[in-house]
Each structure stands twice: as C-alpha cells, then as structure tokens.
C-alpha cells in the first residue's frame, strides 16, 4: 500500500517496543460482539491507472461547462478562473496545512486570510469580514442567527427574491432558535417596498434582501435599509461579490451584514461545492460574528505577525455558547478568492462585471426576441434574467442539453409560481456566437 509505510518488519519492531504480540492486542477494549467479523463489503481496490480510467468514464457522463455551453446560474456561475490560482493553491504548504492554530508555523495561511478579510470588507463596503463560512446559504443562515442574537428579536423577514435554496437552509438553521421566517412580498421581480414596510416591525431581527435577486433583478437596497432601520431591525444583504466591481457596495447602501456566495471568485463550479460563504459586518458586531478571524499583531521582537483572534466567540472555547458551531470552514476557497481578487485587481473585477452585464443584456435582447419568449420582469438586471417561455421550460432545457447547451434553470422545481420561466445567467465567458446559437436553438425548441 503506497500510503502505508510500515513494513512487516517495522510493525514487528514497534510491537516489540510496545510490548504486545500483535495489533489485535491493542484492540482489546473493543467489545467482541461489535467486532466486524468479515471484510467491509466494498468494491475491490483499484490501481491508480484503473481508477483514473473509471473516474474519467464517470466524468464523461456529465455535461460540464467545458463540454457544453453554460447559461446556468441560480447561485453558481461559470466565471473564468485564471490559471495561477490552481497552481498556487496546490502548493502543499497551503493545501495540507490545518487551521492555523500554531501561528508561527502558519503565517502563510494567516496572511492570506488577513488579505481575504480586507478584500471582502473592501468589496462589500463593510468594516470586517470573517475567514469564511461554508457557502452563501449557510452564511445567510448564520447572519439570521446573528441578527437574532444582536437584536434579541425573533422574526426574520426574507425578501421574496432571496434564492429559494438559501431560504431552505435558513429554515433549517433557525429552527433550533425558534425564529419565525416571514416573506417580504415580491410580486413583480423586486420587493414591494410598501408591503415590506408593513411586514417589518418590532419583532423583526433582520430584513434580508438579495440583490441582484434570484430572478436576476436589482433591488433597492438603500430603501430597504431605511425600512429595516426604521423598525430597529438589521439589514442583511445577500450579494454576489464578483458583481461588486460594478455594483454599489451594500455597506454604502446601509447594510449591517453582508453575506453571499463567493464561488464566482475563482472557485470551481464542482457540482455545487465546496463553495465560499462570504460574511461581513459592521465593526460593532464583531464580537457576535460567527467563524474565524485573523488579526494583525506583533511578535516577541516587535515584528508584524498574524494570528487567529477573538477566539472566545468560537466553539472550541465557548462551546455551547459559541456564536456558531463552525469549525472547519472553507479556507482554501477563501485563498482561491484572495488570489482571484489579487489577479483581477481593481480594474479586472470591474471588467468582469461589465463584460458579464454586456453579454447578459445582449442575450436578453436576443432571447426575448424569439417569438413567444419574453422577459418575465421589467426590472433592471445584471448578469442574470428570467424568461417566460411559451413551452415547458423543463422540456426546452432537456432538448437544448442534447445540443450541448445548458439553457438555464427551469424555475418550476424551486419556484412553482414561475413554472413557465427559465432563469438564464450569462458570464463574461460566453461569446456572442454562443449566445446567437442559443437563441436560434431556443427559437426552434419553442416553435
């Protein structure tokens, strides 16, 4: 076994030192009746070359964004991942290190997290960001719990444009705390602010608004902030940070907490995970924040150094009273995002946003021009939009998939109200040609 270095001779020598005859003698505390008396019923071991063949065959049964043209979004996007990211994260010193509990031997990880915190705070317009949460949805769930802890209030108002998959995760997480979820009415693709004002009140811990929202529409965050703050509630914004080169920072529009899915920042699509839960907040809430934080400090010689800090918030110290149960987070994805943001930089992120918006608007025009197809909402959007189709979106999606086009998300499964709709996302990766081919194929499919 190439991963097991002990030879029979090594084993004998070690057993002798220990003073037992065999490994069995070390297992004596395990109750005999619970001992497995047969080998595990697993498929037989494969040699590396055989395994690679097998995995390639499995992978070949998937239509990925390389073998097909991807217009899927809904919380995960096919943005380009610059080459250096993968090379750098694969360096074993990053890859095979643990959470940086010994800071002196972990400055690499600590410094990259500190950079990450800075970049996320900057992008979101917030004061502080943590070192990551599992994904956008669980970040939102943590934000809801934090709002509850901060305000001692028991209701969370979720805008109707919040990704329904996120809503389900929030439901799971707030169940224990007994919070009540209410919906912020979103009749025409964006919040109906007057209606929201009536829902938000003295029990509201937080108003949660996603912008661009699940349907791709931009929400009026500043107006939402007013409503939330007027009621003494926090405003939690769900934001895709890759858009924040072009879109206003939620922090500048009144957000108290900003969460979001950072997958677009250089993290592979990978069928849904691991992704990157972004979490940023105002300074005043820092001691209520979930997750790890890295701070700058000095060493014995006065040199700058970095270490985990404010750990008394965390489970390994505070246990049942911790701000969150999170331990393992997604540090390596945060590193990908850090390198992504360093690579794209001030100008590049703007450019990614502009290109995505341009392609999306071109696509919207082309697709909505297909007879019978229309834009579902008359709202400003960014890189994603909702189409109303004259035929079953599921069937259209299935048909186009056979032509190598991942046409988008048929909304029915997640959002029954919009069963005739298709959610289409367009990133900077899509070309005019691909969009034109898509439009033509769509025209045929709905004809």
């Amino acid at each position, binding site marked *: *076994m190439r*991963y097991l*270095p002990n030879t029979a001779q090594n084993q004998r020598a*070690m057993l002798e030192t*220990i003073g037992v005859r065999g490994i069995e003698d070390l297992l004596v505390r*395990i109750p005999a009746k619970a001992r*497995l008396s047969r080998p595990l019923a697993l498929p037989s071991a494969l040699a590396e070359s055989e395994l*690679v063949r097998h*995995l390639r065959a*499995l*992978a070949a*049964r*998937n239509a990925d964004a390389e073998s097909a043209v991807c217009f*899927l*979004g809904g*919380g995960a996007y*096919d943005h380009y991942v610059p080459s250096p990211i993968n090379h*750098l*994260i694969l360096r074993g*010193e990053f*890859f095979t290190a*643990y959470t940086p509990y010994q*800071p*002196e031997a*972990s400055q690499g990880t600590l410094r990259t997290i*500190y950079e990450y*915190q*800075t970049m996320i705070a900057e992008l979101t317009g917030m004061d502080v*960001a943590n070192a990551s949460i*599992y994904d956008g949805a669980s970040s939102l769930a943590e934000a809801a719990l934090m709002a509850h802890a901060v305000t001692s209030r028991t209701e969370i108002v979720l805008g109707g444009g919040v990704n329904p998959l996120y809503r389900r995760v929030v439901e799971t997480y707030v*169940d*224990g705390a007994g919070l009540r979820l209410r919906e912020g009415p979103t009749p025409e693709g964006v919040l109906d602010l007057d209606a929201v004002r009536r829902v938000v009140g003295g029990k509201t811990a937080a108003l949660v608004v996603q912008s661009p929202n699940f349907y791709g529409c931009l929400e009026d965050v500043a107006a939402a902030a007013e409503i939330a703050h007027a009621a003494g509630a926090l405003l939690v914004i769900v934001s895709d940070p890759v858009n*924040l080169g072009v879109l*206003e*920072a939620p922090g500048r529009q009144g957000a108290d907490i900003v969460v979001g899915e950072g997958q677009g920042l250089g993290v592979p699509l990978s*069928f*849904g*995970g691991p992704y990157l839960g972004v979490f940023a907040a105002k300074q005043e809430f820092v001691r209520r924040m979930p997750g790890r934080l890295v*701070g*700058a400090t000095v060493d014995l010689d006065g040199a700058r*150094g970095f*270490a985990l800090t*404010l750990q008394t918030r965390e489970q390994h110290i505070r*246990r*049942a*009273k*911790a701000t969150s*149960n*999170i*331990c*393992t987070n997604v540090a*390596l994805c945060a590193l990908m995002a850090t390198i992504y943001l360093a690579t794209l930089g001030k*100008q*590049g992120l703007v450019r990614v946003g502009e*290109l995505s918006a341009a392609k*999306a608007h071109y696509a919207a025009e082309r697709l909505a021009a297909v007879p019978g197809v229309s834009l579902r909402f008359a709202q400003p959007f960014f890189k994603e939009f909702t189409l109303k189709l004259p035929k079953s979106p599921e069937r259209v999606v*299935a048909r186009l*998939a056979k032509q190598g086009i*991942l046409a988008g998300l048929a909304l029915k499964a997640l959002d029954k109200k919009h069963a005739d709709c298709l959610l289409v996302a367009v990133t900077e990766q899509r070309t*005019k040609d691909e969009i034109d081919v898509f439009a033509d194929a769509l025209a045929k499919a709905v004809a």
Partner: protein
Amino acid sequence: MPYDNQRAYDRLVFELSSPGRLAFSLPESDVPVEPALNALPAKYRRATPAALPEVSELDVVRHYSRLSQMNYGVDTHFYPLGSCTMKYNPKINEDAARIAGFARLHPLAPEAAAQGALQLMYDLGKMLAEIAGMDAVSLQPAAGAQGELAGVLMIRAYHEARGEKRTKVLIPDSAHGTNPASTALAGYEVIEVKSDAEGQVDLADLERHLGPDVAAFMITVPNTLGNFEPRVMEIAERCHAHGVQVYMDGANLNAILGITRPGDLGFDVCHFNLHKTFTTPHGGGGPGAGPVGIKSHLEPFLPAPVVAKKDDGYFLDWKRPQSIGKLQAFWGNFGMHVRAYTYIRTMGADGLRAVSDNAVLNANYVMKRLEAYYDVAAPGPCMHECVLSARKQKKLGVTAMDVAKRLLDLGFYAPSTYFPLIVEEALMIEPTETESKETLDAFCEAMIRIAREAETDSRGIHEAPVTTPVRRLDQTKAAREPNLRWRPRS
C-alpha cells in the same frame, strides 16, 4: 524563500500594489458594453472602485509562493495534530477532482446531464454506510460540525414526529467544542456528563441525567483521549432504554475502519469527516465534508434532496416531506466527495482495515516511547492517538504550549494542545498511519530532547520558536486591539 532572510519578506499583497498594474487578461467584448451599463440605474452602480490590489501576474505568483513557504503542511512536515488526522492527502485525489466533468459541472445541470456525478455520490453514500454500519448517508453537510447539526436535527425531528418533546442532549465534558455548539444550535440544552480519570464516561453521572427529557447522548468514539470506551454498547443500550438516541462523533473513525462500526456498536447517528478519515486535504482550515449516517428509523428526516436511483438513472429526490431541510444551497461539497470516493476505491476493504491497524500501532508506539518522559493522560492501549500531559514539565516552568513551540524549531508541527479540556497541559498526538517508524522515531527523539531541556535548560524552550518567520505572537494585543483588515498607511 526558505533560507534567505525570510523575516525581511513581510509584505501583504496590497503593499505590492501600483496603480495601473495588471495581472489579468480578459477578452475584448464581442457585444456592445455601453447599453448594458446604461441600463443599470446610476444609484445601483459602484461610486468608488473597490481598492483591490494592482499587481502583475508574477507578483501574484511570487507573493503567494513565498507566503506558502511560511507554512508547515503535511507535504513538508510531520503534523501530529491530535483529533485532526493530518494524514497524507494523495495527489491522485486532486487530479480526480480536477477532471473537467467534475470540476466544471454546474450544480443545476439537468439530472440527465449529471449522471456521472450523481452516481459517484450515490455510490459514495453506500460505501460510507457500509463502513459505518449505517442504513443511509447524506453527503450534504459541509463539515463535521454541520454533520452534527444535521444529525441532531434529525433526532429532534424523530422525537417530534413521535410526539415527544425532549429538551436536553447529554455530552461528555471531554467532547470537542462543536458537539455542544451544534447541539445548542439545534435548540437543545446541553448537559455535560463527567468523565472518569481515564477519560471514560462516568456511567453513574450519565445514568443520573438520563430521562424522558433527554433527546440524545453524543459521544466521540474512540474518545478524545484516544481510548476506546469499552462500555459503549452498554451505554447505547441504557440510552435506548430511555428513548434517548445515541450519536457518534465520527471524527476519530480513522481508528476503527473495518474493525468495528458505529452502527454495530448501537449508534443511531454518526457523522464522518471526509477531511480526516478519507484524505481530503485540510487546506489551511477547510473545506471539508461531513456526511452523516443514520439508522433507518431516521431516514424520513434526512436532509433534502437525497441522491436516489431509479431504473433510468440517478436523481435528486426532493419529495421528503419530513426532511429537516437543507444545509447548503446545493448537494454538498462534491469536490470532496470525489476525493473521498477516489480514496476508498484506491484502498478497498483490506486497505482501509490496514489504515486503522497502522494508525493504532503508530499511536501506541509513540505513547510507549514517550511515557517515561511525559505523563500519559489515560492508560493504554490507545487507539489512533494518545494524549500526554506536560504537567510534570509545567512544574519546571515548561507548559504544553512551550513544548509545542519548541517542536516547531525542531522540524515538526505541534500536537494539539490544551484539548481535551479535561486533561491538564494536554498534548494530543495523532501520528496517523501514513507516517513511517523512522518519522515517529525522529519525533519521539525531539520530544525526549525537549523533556530533557525542560530539566536542564528551559530558557531555550521559552525563546522558541526562533527558526520560524515570526516568533511568539502577542495574542493579547491581537484580541484587545483587533486589527482585522489592512489599511493603507496614510
């Protein structure tokens, strides 16, 4: 740069920035850009550009290459961090996860276009169920702690479905912090159960707490002192007698693969840490994956959707009316599933059994070699890790932390320190099966050397580390004056 004056490389990427410098390359737009931007209402557009760094691609590569060199990793150092199973992460796992058909697969691709991925998840779930002796597994939890949350929520849903209202969960005082944290998150009151001198559950104390208001008992097996609790089946029985579900924290599964199974020991729920037992890398803190296995009575409550199989292929089964709901937006950390699947298919049943045999052998060997120098927290044989105490050394003024720091200078990462909390000056050592006797010998010699130094010259130990890029850090300052983001010196 390992050897030059590393301390001189004290740069953050922001400090390399120069206005107008670029590291990216994006195509010209083949469609008009202005109309799209004009369609965005001005108030939604960013007023001041985000102050991201402006560097070249070489800056990026060199900066992060150098930062990486400031870390110890398993790839470069023995990393005996107890409870963390810092074993070798096979390179083939990484190749597997990067096959485009996996790495670039969108989670919302139509099921027909994701059959390979769904099959892999389905099969991995089955394999994990077999390994743990469980009836079903959900791959959705993102890490051990989320697996715990899912497990406890399923237990809650189970009791509630039966019309029982139970409010407490019992957890030994030796437990990992996530156990109480997850349990509290699930809405339970956490009751600590005492451990005896050997780190085992104080049965009397357990019995005292058991009752109709107790929803679950949660325990780590082997326990966090590295020992197998011999009465674990009896404990499970007693719990069940009170209608209490038993949860096994499977973080230490590396000790018992193919030897015994949580399901066979009587557990109702058990989570896995794919990033420990199943060789997905730790990545400096994550991502991991924390699948949760359950007995059939809990199956209705599994997180939705469930990866299922019917005649014409695999699909996501959303029709789970009693489900506890979702934990992540999508289906779990699929990239980690690919790695764990690759590992299990590499090892097979015999290989996994050999993993645990060698993990146990290595830990006992280290414990034996060090027992004359450090106090042993609980008498052996241990399982895959052993807990020592620097209490003898502490009397000489050398703490567990001092030992840890000194090890860094001697070329090793440190054991876990001060965990479990019930052991004074704990040094928790988990060698893992992927380390050779030679490496263990070198480590033991370093530990012995430190024990001797504690007796003869503890000053050097207090200076340690001196070979790392920074020396001991002022943690108080870090917490008192939190500096959590870089700002330009103005």
